[in-house]
């Protein structure tokens, strides 16, 4: 289980970093608030994972100081594209946690997967990307 949690932690760390870049490029206070709320949600998941890994006596991977971005973030369009990629990545990281957990831990994993998928849908709608949903959030490919 620790391997899956470590992957989820890496995805959450990347999301926290990415939203720092996304937020400043978005137009409108509502959208920037949305980005801030998303970053905060990812921080809470990060904190949960750090605690959970510590409880399992597993080494917590150190978050990298920075990330190589897949493309430059220069405007709202590129910021939204990154936000969508980040949320899809977070969903993909949490889905494998479901089969290796139960009870409250599985509930947390399902909430994390669901929240990431919903945020990705929100950003797709704002970016006017269609379709706004995918049949199996978190499933690779």
């Amino acid at each position, binding site marked *: 289980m620790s391997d899956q949690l470590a992957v989820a932690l890496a995805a959450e760390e990347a999301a926290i970093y990415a939203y720092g870049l996304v937020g400043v490029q978005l137009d409108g206070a509502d959208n920037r608030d949305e980005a801030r709320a998303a970053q905060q949600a990812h921080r809470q998941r990060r904190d949960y994972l750090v605690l959970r890994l510590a409880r399992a006596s597993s080494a917590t991977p150190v978050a990298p100081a920075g990330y190589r971005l897949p493309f430059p973030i220069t405007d709202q369009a590129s910021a939204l594209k990154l936000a969508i990629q980040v949320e899809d990545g977070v*969903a993909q990281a949490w*889905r*494998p946690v*479901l*089969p*290796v957990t139960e*009870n409250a831990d*599985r*509930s947390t*994993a*399902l909430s994390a*997967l*669901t929240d*990431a*998928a*919903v945020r*990705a*849908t*929100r950003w797709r*709608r704002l970016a006017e990307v*269609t*379709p*706004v*949903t*995918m*049949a*199996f*959030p*978190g*499933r690779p490919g």
Partner: protein
Amino acid sequence: MVLTESVRMSRTGHSRRWVLGAAGAGLGAAALTGCGLFDDPEPPAAPDPLQAVLDEAVALAAAYDRLFISKPDLRARLGPLADDHRAHAAELARLLDTTVPSAAASPATGTGATAAGLADLRKTERLAQKTASTYCLRAPVARAALTGSIAACRATHVEALR
């Protein structure tokens, strides 16, 4: 004749004829039971709880299709959501080793036979998300990821219908 008369048995108070008759009936019943005539029928196997998630997927896809008949302009925007439900139904049917039921045969027709409005669809999607989430939280390991994705997808539909 004496053989046909009722003779009281001293200790039980029953007549001998009654006792023999009862014993004979008991033997007969035992023999018939051995033949299986009086066996309790096997209780029908409980339906797989995943069937409810499949039925909802079929019913939701049909609900979108009915909506597109009355409001064809919504097909471009919401057609992919119906396709999501059809993809879920196909995966779930494969997992249950069954065929995708027809919408008419599906008991999960929460939106009724007439075209639902967007608010009704949203409500039904939310209920369906709850069904899939509840199942996922207690699902066997092999089904947890798939049903988790289906629950998450249904949540995105609630968002998309806002």
